[in-house]
């Protein structure tokens, strides 16, 4: 039974359960609403909840567990002898899966009958030929063990799916009966539904947190793997970045320092652009602009935040780079070699960060109580004196937090630097030279065709981990500062 139908059936049971629960509650109270502990809809919701939640939980667990079980059974069926030299068990299992899918599709398109597909004594050559006729891609010659395993795979999966459907529907029905049985006038359906809502919300929050942990773990394991192949001290203190993709990357020099330098240099240029402009824009919007101007200008400024970073990257590559080159290049001052440079990426990234800084700072400036402004104006201060001496000092911790958040955005930014900064990893002070960043190198390390187990590819995880630790640190400091600031006026 397709998954879609199974889900629909469970939802239908829930809908029927809802109606039944409601009417059962009503009749148990003799149609007297005031005799019920909760509103009738709560009884219905209670039933629907007890149908849907356990059934879907079971469904999810089953869908995750079944492939593991099937794989382990199949894996046991394949004798060591049928694994060729230079191949691995994983590759053979992938072959089995492909063959099974081919059989499925062939049956579905009518190229072979179900009996033929599941016939264990079928002629291998005939099966292969028919599969090819049916347009199914079978890479190597199907061998006897593979065919047997593929057939077994199909059987396991289809029975598994049947059992799953039956069990899920049974669980849904059981939930409905259980909830309907406890439905009577005294039953505190409202409180039970409240608990259910709480549980669902907690589940949503934990999924987000667990995913974060999962991401970190996947980084950690791969980083660990990398450091077994490449010494950590060379990685953290090496001054050269020159991965060599030949010979399993053994002659590579993978020092992170040139990349970190590029990252920080570009981020600093970006912040030098974004912080003053963003801050001044925020001060104008919150202190000087009339409500009409503010209503128009604020959303316009925030449109900048909605532009995809790849578009900023194109802007850097096609507009800002050539523009800078015409001024600082060989026809001008002669200190810039190509359009891609730290300055190009930094300027464009700065523009990207303006709405980030301005909208956070605007919120923080607005949080400074009006009483502060009144106090200052009441002493005969002008607007700019008030802003400079009262509002900005009061808002300073929050603004610092906003700047740190912007900095962690800048450090993690990828598209703009890929297109705008160039690809050369170098330690240089000239902002008109091409440099590269950690993020840009992660992209280039993983999009190449390097062996995934070589240090040249695995270094991407170590780079990602380093970046993660840096931005996490910045975010923690920023949040700490912002929170401390909030306490000041509450």
């Amino acid at each position, binding site marked *: 039974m397709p998954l879609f139908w199974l889900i629909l059936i469970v939802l239908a049971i829930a809908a029927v359960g809802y109606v039944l629960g409601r009417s059962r509650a009503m009749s148990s109270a003799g149609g007297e609403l005031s005799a019920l502990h909760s509103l009738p809809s709560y009884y219905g919701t209670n039933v629907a909840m007890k149908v849907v939640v356990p059934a879907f939980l079971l469904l999810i667990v089953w869908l995750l567990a079944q492939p593991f079980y099937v794989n382990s059974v199949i894996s046991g069926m394949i004798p060591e002898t049928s694994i060729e030299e230079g191949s691995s068990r994983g590759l053979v299992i992938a072959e089995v899966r492909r063959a099974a899918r081919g059989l499925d599709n062939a049956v579905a398109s009518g190229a072979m009958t179900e009996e033929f597909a599941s016939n264990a004594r079928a002629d291998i050559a005939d099966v292969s030929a028919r599969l090819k006729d049916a347009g199914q891609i079978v890479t190597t010659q199907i061998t006897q063990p593979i065919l047997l395993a593929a057939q077994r795979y199909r059987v396991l999966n289809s029975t598994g799916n049947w059992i799953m459907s039956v069990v899920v529907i049974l669980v849904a029905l059981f939930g409905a009966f259980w909830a309907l049985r406890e439905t009577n006038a005294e039953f505190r359906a409202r409180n039970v539904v409240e608990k259910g809502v709480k549980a669902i919300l907690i589940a949503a929050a934990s999924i987000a947190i667990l995913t974060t942990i999962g991401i970190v773990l996947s980084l950690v394991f791969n980083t660990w793997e990398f450091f077994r192949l490449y010494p950590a001290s060379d990685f953290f203190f090496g001054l050269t970045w020159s991965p060599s993709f030949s010979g399993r990357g053994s002659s590579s020099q993978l020092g992170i320092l040139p990349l970190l330098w590029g990252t920080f240099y570009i981020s600093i240029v970006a912040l030098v652009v974004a912080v003053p402009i963003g801050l001044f824009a925020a001060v104008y919007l919150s202190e000087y602009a009339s409500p009409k101007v503010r209503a128009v200008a604020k959303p316009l400024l925030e449109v900048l935040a909605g532009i995809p970073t790849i578009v900023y990257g194109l802007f850097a590559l096609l507009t800002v780079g050539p523009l800078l080159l015409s001024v600082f290049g060989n026809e001008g001052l002669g200190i810039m070699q190509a359009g891609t440079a730290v300055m190009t990426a930094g300027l464009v990234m700065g523009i990207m960060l303006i709405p980030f800084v301005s909208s956070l700072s605007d919120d923080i400036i607005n949080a400074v109580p009006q009483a*502060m402004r*009144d*106090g200052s104006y*009441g*002493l*005969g*201060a002008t607007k700019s004196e008030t802003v400079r001496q009262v509002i900005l*000092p*009061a808002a300073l911790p929050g603004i610092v937090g906003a700047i740190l958040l912007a900095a962690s955005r800048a450090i993690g930014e990828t598209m703009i630097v890929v297109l705008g900064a160039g690809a050369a990893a170098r330690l240089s002070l000239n902002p008109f030279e091409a440099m590269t960043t950690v993020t840009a190198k992660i992209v280039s390390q993983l999009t190449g065709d390097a062996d995934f187990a070589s240090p040249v590819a695995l270094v991407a995880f170590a780079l990602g981990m380093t970046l993660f630790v840096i931005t996490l640190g910045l975010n923690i400091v920023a949040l700490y500062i912002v929170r401390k600031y909030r306490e000041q006026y509450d």
Partner: protein
Amino acid sequence: MNEMPSIEQAKDMTESKISANKVQVFYGENHAIKDVDIEIQPRSVTSFIGPSGCGKSTFLRTINRMNDTIDICRVEGSIKIDNEDIYDPKVDPVQLRAKVGMVFQKPNPFPKSIYDNIAYGPRIHGLARNKAELDDIVSSSLQKAGLWEEVKNRLDEPGTGMSGGQQQRLCIARAIAVSPEVILMDEPCSALDPIATAKVEELIDELRENYTIVIVTHSMQQAARVSQRTAFFHLGVLVEEGLTEDIFTNPKDKRTQDYITGRFG
């Protein structure tokens, strides 16, 4: 009226520090203050009383043009301080506010040290030529506000860390530091406990010697305790104004009588 003002009129005009004539205040379409005429005497305390929303705070804020910071607010009529129209285009509201200080309902010290809170105004207006003069202004302002003994050893601590009553006296000291002639107080004790209130009231009574004080208050007892003259506002109209004793013992208007005897408000 081409003739010279009579001696009697001239004397009357020099006597009052603030004189308001047919003042109207509009908040957008809302006519908040209607036809207010009042003469406020120098070196005395005048209190504005009246039920909530009667316009007494609004009128107070017209005296140092704090209403200018509200976009939709519009003022008509004339208000003169020392015979000078403060709504004249030549008058700089920023300068005016240095001359007419203000203390607000809730204590609002800046998130700076006690010293910097007091020094804020003098620094802006360049009242001190050097650090020693600034120190003098700070200590004398704190002394006048009766706060010196309590804070002299912790001038570099934040003003926000003091008690509510101390904060309000700090705000008064901050206003005094720019040597204003008039101090406007908008319900200065409404956020304070009775003991802190008593201290602030005592301070107001002392400040009367050197400053013209206008205070808005919800407490009729407070008006009776601290002020020499009292004005009663109702629905944006100045109902009655006179010596405090007269207003409280012998009100001329029925509405004033109803209010002070607690029949409404």
